């Protein structure tokens, strides 16, 4: 009996010891840092363009400005991201696409009492649209794929090819592959306004939609999908955008009409409201930071083609472009 009791006691003692040790390590770290500056938390999201841009920021903040930087992970433009920025669990996120998080922006950024601060745009312009693989229009002799929709250029041409894009889910209608119903992309309204006899099918998540796209390319099957640019998919697959009537201020979400394409997204930088006070130099630097679509794509391509890590690809760009980033350092 006593032996058994000893085991329980010993186990709990060990537990306490581990906890104490851990607490010791944890407490000793911030104590040193408060003398200089706390850790700056940037947000990593689940897409490559964002990851490399954040890595460039992080390396410059560490190497050129002597900041203590760490990253935390949050799924793109999600509730956790905004709640984290409000509470100060995250300090800064690069690359928020306004039209993918309209409701959250309204509640957290544009409300009367801003809980999250917007500090300008990154310089990246997001373009959203509907795409088909180029072999659908031009064929691919190397793979023995015949062009099944040779005259497809605009949404008005879609009706004559609806059987080409039909699947067992949609019957005799064509299928428009959509990502998730959680995004405000209004495919049903657009299809109705264009008078196109297609049916949107939601993949449920970005991963699922891209897997479906990947499988279509492997098989050489026709597919019409929602997608945006910049996105790594354009580097891997040869996609052609279907023309839509241009977006004007009469169009949704500003106006009522759905007979339009999508507005372009000015990708924004968001921050915790206490950021400027806590990290004034970093704030200045991130405010100056600008990157174009072409620059971001170049880093992403280097990452995927040459099998580099995110950090290596970011470092390579920094090494080659000193004249660009020198200007950002305050």
């Amino acid at each position, binding site marked *: *009996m006593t*032996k*058994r*009791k000893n*085991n329980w006691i*010993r186990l709990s003692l060990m*537990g306490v010891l*581990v*906890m104490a*040790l*851990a*607490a*010791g*390590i*944890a*407490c000793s*770290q911030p104590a040193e840092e408060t003398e200089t500056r706390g850790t700056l938390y940037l947000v990593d999201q*689940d897409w490559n363009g964002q990851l490399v841009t954040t890595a460039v920021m992080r390396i410059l903040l560490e190497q050129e400005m002597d900041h203590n930087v760490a990253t*935390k*992970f*949050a*799924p793109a433009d*999600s*509730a*956790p*991201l905004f*709640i*984290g920025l409000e*509470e100060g*669990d*995250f300090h800064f996120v690069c690359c928020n696409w306004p039209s993918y998080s309209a*409701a*959250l922006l309204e*509640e957290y950024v544009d409300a009367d009492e801003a809980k999250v601060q917007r500090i300008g745009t990154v310089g990246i312009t997001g373009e959203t649209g509907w795409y088909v693989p180029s072999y659908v229009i031009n064929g691919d002799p190397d793979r023995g794929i015949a062009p099944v929709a040779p005259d497809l250029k605009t949404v008005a041409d879609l009706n004559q090819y609806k059987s080409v894009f039909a*699947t*067992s*889910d949609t019957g005799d209608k064509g299928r428009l*592959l959509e990502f*998730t*119903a*959680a995004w405000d992309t209004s495919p049903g309204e657009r299809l109705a306004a264009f008078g196109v006899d297609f049916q949107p*099918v*939601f*993949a*449920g*998540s*970005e*991963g*699922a*939609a*891209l*897997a*479906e*796209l*990947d*499988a279509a390319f*492997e*098989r050489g099957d026709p597919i019409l999908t929602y997608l945006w640019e910049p996105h*790594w998919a354009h580097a891997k697959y040869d996609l052609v955008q279907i023309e839509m009537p241009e977006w004007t201020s009469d169009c949704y979400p500003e106006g009522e009409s759905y007979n339009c394409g999508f507005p372009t997204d000015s990708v924004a930088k968001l921050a915790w409201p206490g950021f400027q006070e806590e990290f004034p130099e970093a704030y200045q630097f991130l405010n100056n930071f600008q990157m174009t679509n072409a620059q971001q794509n170049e880093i992403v391509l280097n990452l995927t083609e040459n099998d580099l*890590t995110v950090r290596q690809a970011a470092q390579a760009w920094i090494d080659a472009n000193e004249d660009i980033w020198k200007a950002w350092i305050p």
Partner: protein
Amino acid sequence: MIRAQALPARLFGERSYRGILWVAVAVAAYVLAFSLAAANAGTEYGDWPGRWELPIQEPVDRFFEWFEDATAWFFNPLSDVIDRGLDGIEAFLLWLPWPFIVVATAAVGCRLGGKWLGIFCGAAALFIAFNGYWDSAILTLSVVGVSVLFAVGIGVPVGIFAAFSNRFESIVRPVLDTMQVLPAFVYLIPALVLFGVSGTQGIFLTVVYSIPPVIRLTNLGIRQVPLAAIETAHSHGSTAFQTLLQVQLPLAKSSIMMGINQTIMMAVSMVIVTALVGVEGLGTDVWLSLREVDAGEGLESGIAIVLLAVILDRFSYAMARSGHSSPATPPTGGTLSGKSGAGVLKFLASRYALPLAGAALLVVLLIVGALFPPLRDLPDDLTFTLADPVNEVVGWMAVHLHFITSWVRDMLFRELGYSPIHTLFLWLPWPAMMAVSAALAYVTAGWRVALLALAGLGLAGIGGVWDVTMDTLSQVLTAGIFTVVVGVALGLLASQSRHFEAALRPVLDIMQTMPIFVYLIPVIMLWGIGPLVGIIATSVYALPPVIRMTVLGIREVPEQVIETAQSHGSTALQTMLQVKIPLALPTIMMGINQTIIMVLAMVIIAGLVGGGGLGQEVFINSIWLRMGHGLVAGMTIVFMAMVLDRMTQGKREASIPFGLIR
């Protein structure tokens, strides 16, 4: 006499006439459903009246807003403290040189389960390290470890209370049922606001989901302590508290340890969900691979999760099995008193050999590691990857197996399963749907469950998710029927052939531990997206318990009964149909019960691959911060789970809690 009986009665026995009747009713319903689907029946007939939909979501939203403001003073500091602790543990484990952890894992494995377990554990740790998932695995291990500490620290006392108070137990039981089935996405957002985006949040989600087994088995273990043992303790003058500490807890120890073992396994399975609230680790890796359609990397991180789960499972299982004789008892007995100096040294060496060797190894590794960095931190270029060949295989399958997979999807699942059932449910007027459900629940499980069914359907109607609920219910039934048919068939085969069973067992183990997200990419590449894919993935995931319980049930049939049947001239087939299956039925039903619960737990995941239904409802509302809507959809799932659980358990008084059968 025997000749005079009808064929069905000869096959199934006199008492099964009722069963045949039921089968006939089911077939008739199916034929009706199938012809409806073929006729493309309109769906508006069965709808719940729109004016009866009440805005019950809004007060919920407002309550949460108030609750968050009112309790911030308490939760924010709590969250900070836990975060610090978690950061410390992570920092400590990452600071340890990786070879030390590999060797330590192997040594502990050796100690607990012998040479082969030791070798396996060491090899598994090495694989994770050289596959490039070391840091992720360590982060995941820290979160799982801290969560399990909390779960045990809270769960054991609650379990003890439940064991001493029947009233408390009757309150706790439905709460635990709810915690296991309510999708985490429902309380993810409220919890986010309480705890912030932090490790604490991940720990909270993990503890909520994984605490039920430890509470249940502590309760069960203490209740099972023989009365005689307690009375003896009392007659020797022990107080109630002494009896608890010295008699009841020690005797319940192996049961409690089994509970902890299950809690650990469930905690590991939460890594994917916690990745969504910023908890880094293997879950994040799976998530990233999904987003980039990298089936190979997804598989690699999945393997790492499986290996971690297997190591933790074997460790805790070995500790549970060892029960009363602790493995830590020293090999040489005796006490310190009355020994010479050398004797003391020898005693210390024998008793503390393992810790001493560990400390020595650590010091050596720290010194060598300072000179030779790869021993401290494994460099990236030493790792290998399986991703490319896996991706190639998946790509090949997507092209060359598509003709067969699309046939399976469209013919088997859509035309014969989902489509007729779904059409029938949408066509049935809502009062008929409620009456049929209540009647079925009453016949199989009694009036309480019938009320539960009515309440659940009523909630779905009032909450405005009637159609979505019908969709989910038809998906659950399709997946359930498929799983039970295929599972029982495979189980019967496996029970006849040891070789087949031996080949099947590791496959089942992997299927149960591998997070479903890992095989989502291959499944989508083969089957496409939509509700059917959700159903197929769910069926695969939920197969293991029904196969296992079928094998177990058939194997448990006593030898004499079989011999008696054979001596009366039964053929093998007759023995199987008339003796083995009826006797194994209760065990098989337990497997079916588990399977149904697993199917429901998967509903939410199906929403992420285009399954629609309540899963998508819950997920979207969590993104839009609409807690009330999410809660209604989530509670509908909970009601559905409870009703189906009770129905498949039958009219037993003491219901077996779900998820408890190994």
